[in-house]
């Protein structure tokens, strides 16, 4: 508990210091990370805590975005709702739409619930381009941020702090919510909603409330997006965003409060960092999702907690070699996969074909990758990734063996101490 608080404090301090060290583009990416983190946590109130997997959460995010844009347009950032408070419009819209949509969606649970949320979001997505006065058609709605409270909100640093304050406050409220009676009941809903009925609770009402609160915080995230981008079109309603928040939450781990925030921040950063480096970044993102879900079903926070458990059980000294082996194995496998993907992507690109046609004397010219030329016909080009791949596989085996040995040792220790314990008794 104490170390938890310490790390939270460190994290918050780092977030506040971030603008000191950052470049503009990194700061903009950080804003996106913060918004994605809030969105994922709002989603997780419904999914991880309430046990209701929504496939259409982009709808509430998008409604928040458009409500905030319209509020910015209408009020011009003066009067009752100055620019820093604009996301409140998103909150109200998210809440209102959440109550209506939630009323229908929560009539059912499980797969049917997921299908209704998906259908409602798709409905909005299909309807939005036609409602030009509301969503502005293709060109969308755009507006201007107005200065308020003596702050111009003209640069990324100011926007970053605005977003940071909103996101930290919202996350704090969401956390406190888990300790309120309704918040505790949310876990009960996930665990056994049938039993709650026979304890006198109206399960449908509870579900609508939780749905609406989740939609409200999604609306705040959408509102922050509106304040930062000053424009949006109906693309925010795309199912891609709904899917992304599900995946982000699961990658971070839905069973830990900050898990989804971690997952969303990391994946957004990954998108920012890798999209500049590689054209195949969406492929990597997808592969990462699949790998995490296959091998770490409890997400990254699940990995952290099992690391802590193992550390407590076996000690750092015995655990570290295994961990390093795993790390090296994963790195080797990743390097070989990335090499192959990048090489093939370049080999099949139009540029390369044009290059090859331009000079018939050299039908398969070299491709520069990682600062080295590689020939598509050369043996080293193919042997390198394959060797790295097998090295990775070998490392995986080593790591597994070491881990098994550790478990066996622990068993022996346990039975030994049991035996001696019995010996003393008799």
């Amino acid at each position, binding site marked *: 508990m104490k170390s938890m608080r310490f790390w939270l404090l460190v994290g918050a301090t780092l977030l506040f210091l971030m603008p000191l060290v950052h470049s503009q583009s990194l700061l903009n990416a950080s804003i996106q990370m913060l918004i994605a983190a809030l969105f994922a946590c709002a989603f997780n109130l419904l999914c991880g805590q309430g046990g209701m997997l929504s496939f259409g959460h982009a709808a509430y995010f998008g409604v928040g975005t458009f409500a905030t844009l319209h509020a910015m347009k209408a009020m011009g950032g003066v009067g009752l709702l100055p620019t820093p408070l604009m996301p409140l419009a998103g909150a109200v819209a998210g809440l209102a739409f959440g109550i209506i949509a939630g009323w229908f969606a929560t009539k059912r649970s499980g797969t049917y619930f997921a299908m209704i949320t998906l259908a409602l979001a798709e409905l909005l997505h299909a309807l939005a381009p036609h409602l030009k006065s509301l969503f502005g058609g293709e060109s969308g709605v755009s507006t201007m941020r107005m200065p308020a409270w003596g702050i111009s909100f003209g640069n990324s640093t100011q926007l970053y702090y605005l977003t940071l304050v909103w996101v930290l406050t919202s996350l704090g409220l969401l956390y406190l919510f888990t*300790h309120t009676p309704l918040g505790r009941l949310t876990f009960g809903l996930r665990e056994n909603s049938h*039993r709650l009925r026979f304890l006198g609770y109206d399960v449908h009402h509870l579900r609508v409330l939780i749905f609406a609160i989740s939609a409200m915080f999604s609306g705040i995230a959408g509102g922050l997006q509106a304040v930062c981008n000053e424009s949006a079109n109906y693309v925010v309603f795309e199912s891609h965003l709904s899917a992304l928040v599900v995946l982000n939450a699961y990658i971070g781990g839905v069973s830990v409060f900050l898990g989804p925030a971690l997952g969303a921040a990391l994946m957004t950063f990954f998108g920012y960092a890798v999209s500049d480096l590689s054209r195949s970044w969406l492929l990597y993102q997808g592969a990462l999702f699949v790998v995490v879900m296959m091998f770490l079903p409890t997400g990254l926070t699940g990995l952290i907690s099992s690391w802590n458990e193992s550390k407590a059980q076996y000690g750092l000294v015995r655990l570290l070699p295994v961990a390093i082996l795993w790390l090296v194995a994963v790195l080797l496998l990743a390097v070989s996969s990335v090499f192959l993907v990048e090489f093939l992507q370049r080999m099949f690109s139009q540029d390369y074909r044009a290059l090859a046609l331009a000079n018939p004397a050299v039908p398969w010219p070299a491709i520069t990758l990682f600062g080295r030329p590689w020939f598509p016909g050369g043996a080293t080009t193919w042997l390198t990734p394959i060797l790295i791949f097998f090295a990775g596989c070998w490392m995986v085996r080593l790591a597994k063996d070491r881990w098994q040995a550790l478990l066996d040792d622990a068993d022996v220790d346990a039975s030994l101490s049991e035996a001696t314990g019995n010996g003393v008794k008799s």
Partner: protein
Amino acid sequence: MNAPILRLQNLKKSFAETEIIRGVELDIFQGERHAIIGPNGAGKSTLFHLISGNLKPTSGEIFFNALRIEELAPQEINRRGLARSFQITNIFPKLTVFENLRLAVMRRHGLHYTFWRMLSKVPLVGHETDQLLERVRLKARSKTLAGELSYSEQRALEIAMTLACDPLLILLDEPMAGMSHEETDYMVGLIRELTAGRTLIIVEHDMDVVFSLSDRISVLVYGQVLATGTPEQIRNDPKVREAYLGEEVGA
């Protein structure tokens, strides 16, 4: 005798073509411990589902405290003071024992839609939860996950959850099923102690339990009440002996 707290009138329930409950007539009086026995498939659990609102009857009436309840949702029936346990343990396995019971206690304090107050700031709820845990002797296990309790502890927890709303009428569906002799004895004592001053309907297969615990017994056979009476009357009823008890009582 005083007025019935629960009255079933010509209650029927069919699933598709199959009639499970075929016109049950039953009065349960305030303060009595009433057992419902009968062979497998007689419709005992279905009867509980009908009374508690888990199933809607095909026809017939259920009066609880002189008001009809057969069309009400489970939570509305519960709020009128009728609580039940389930044949298959029905708890929140991944929440702690304390948390399980607190969810049950909270209802009565009308806090369920509260999101502006921390639950820990409502000491009364925690206090009552602790008291109940003590009464079912689970205080020492309060931080354990409910799913990790032993079977009989889970049953005790479920009875505590049933009691948490301070009900007038309690339905217990086979609370002793699958328990050892010691556990059963312990549970009988617990039930006797905890349901004092309330009305209890219990479905149970263990005849020792049924005859020692209950004031009256109803025998349900093929969806109809064959006989109702004191343990002595039931023991000596030739129809019951023939249809159900047979050798068991003779021996």
